[in-house]
């Protein structure tokens, strides 16, 4: 579904991604793991068009998207839940969800997706007229995922959804990710520092180091790989 070929992305003169190649097959959960500063977030921002790559090719459903604007990329079906959730703090929960559906005009479809989301996250229905900034971290993470789902994406990019959450919420969020993948058939690219956890729900994984892909393989093979184990799984 998504293919990155030799992606090179720079911030000024600093090269953050050095020829990254990876592919995300339709219907799968793919984990992208690695240490702080390895280039995971930059990879997602390059896919979304916020930091366009300097060279290389990004194919989505066979179509090159590396030169498109962020709004065009969303309209093709790629939504991102960025690191730190980035809820619009002074918009209400309902308005945040509205913004998730910004590019859609099928009122009936939006309404039914909203019902589905309030069913998935009942706490958001309760808080729908509350400002986004007043929610707890875990609730904000749910809202961030819900907002991305409102675009009805084919590919969902998740950046560190477990960061800073209480263990109970981490488990809940992971269950939700699994559920979204199973029920909606949404393809997911999951960036995580918590490698152990990410590889447990993923089908396959990529390990990044210093802007490069260091290892890749099925989630099971990475969980058993000795160097991955010692460097990222803390075993």
């Amino acid at each position, binding site marked *: 579904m998504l293919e990155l070929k030799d992606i090179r992305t720079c911030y000024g003169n600093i090269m953050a991604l050095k020829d990254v190649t990876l592919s995300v097959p339709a219907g799968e959960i793919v984990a992208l793991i690695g240490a702080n500063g390895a280039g995971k977030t930059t990879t997602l921002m390059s896919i979304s068009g916020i930091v366009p790559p300097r060279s290389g090719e990004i194919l989505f459903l066979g179509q090159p998207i590396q030169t498109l604007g962020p*709004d065009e990329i*969303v309209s093709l079906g790629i939504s991102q839940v*960025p690191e730190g959730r*980035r809820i*619009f703090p*002074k918009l209400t929960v309902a308005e945040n969800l*509205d*913004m998730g559906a*910004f590019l859609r005009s099928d009122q009936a479809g939006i309404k039914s997706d909203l019902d589905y989301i309030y069913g998935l996250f009942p706490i958001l229905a309760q808080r729908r007229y509350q400002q986004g900034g007043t929610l707890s971290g875990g609730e904000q993470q749910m809202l961030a995922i819900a907002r991305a789902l409102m*675009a009805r994406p084919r590919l969902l990019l998740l950046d560190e959804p477990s960061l800073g959450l209480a263990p109970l919420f981490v488990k809940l969020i992971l269950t939700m990710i699994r559920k979204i993948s199973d029920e909606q058939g949404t393809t997911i690219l999951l960036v995580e520092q918590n490698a152990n956890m990410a590889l447990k729900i993923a089908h396959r994984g990529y390990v990044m180091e210093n802007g490069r892909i260091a290892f890749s393989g099925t989630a099971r093979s990475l969980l058993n790989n000795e160097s991955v184990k010692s460097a990222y799984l803390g075993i």
Partner: protein
Amino acid sequence: MEYFLELFAGGLTRGSIYALIALGYTMVYGIIELINFAHGEIYMIGAFTALIVSSVLAMSGMSGVSALVLASIVAVVYASAYGFTVEKIAYKPLRRAPRLSPLISAIGMSIFLQNYVLLAQTPDFLPFPNLLPELPLPEAFGNIIGSTELIILLTTAVIMGGLTLVIKFTKMGKAMRATAQDRDMAMLVGINVNRVISNTFVIGSALAAVGGILIASHVGRVNFFIGFIAGIKAFTAAVLGGIGSIPGAVLGGLVLGLTESFATGYVSSDYEDVFAFALLIVILILRPTGLLGRAAAPKV
């Protein structure tokens, strides 16, 4: 008491015009954190356009309310086109540049537009016809507030009410708020941020043009320099109320207008600006973020 009420009404009128212009500063600042120093010039261009159109209409025998409406529409469209173009030429290419660059570009734009009108029109003050209709007010009422002032107050109140509804309930209004709160995230949900920014400039310019027409009708004359003074005052109002805050701009405008009016009435018109800026200094010492402004949250 009647004198007090008269000053109060005069202050509200003046303040509502400041508020109308201040909205343009504060909305642009809220979205791209830029002080658009060319905003006062857009106001001046609005007033000039209305003057030119109404003069042409007067020559063809048209006057009164229909001339006013037609001149206002042309002036608003024309000023909006200027606002739109100024953003595209002077600010958009500098979107990712250090913050000082667009600020300098804004000052350059302001100087350019002033001199362009100076050369294309005239350095002299031109008489501006009073296009606003004369309302039949009861005498006791008329001693406190004039017909023109009442029209200005009502017009600005209606426009601000309309703007509030647009920002609160329409899709574009919500997108504007979302963009102001987190621009990159707005892009990630698919909002075309460039379009939002353009719309903000167009709306701000339209409001400034309306302000220009109203005040020119009230004062009765225009020249190329009126935008500078009005711009500085409206900018003061925006900062007073808390720049970036829309209710703040309205409150700041009214407070500034009332202060000037009372200073003129009870002290001397020579001290009008002294009181206005003294008030600004006092408020910035006590509340550095302005009356309704909030301290910027540290970005992590």
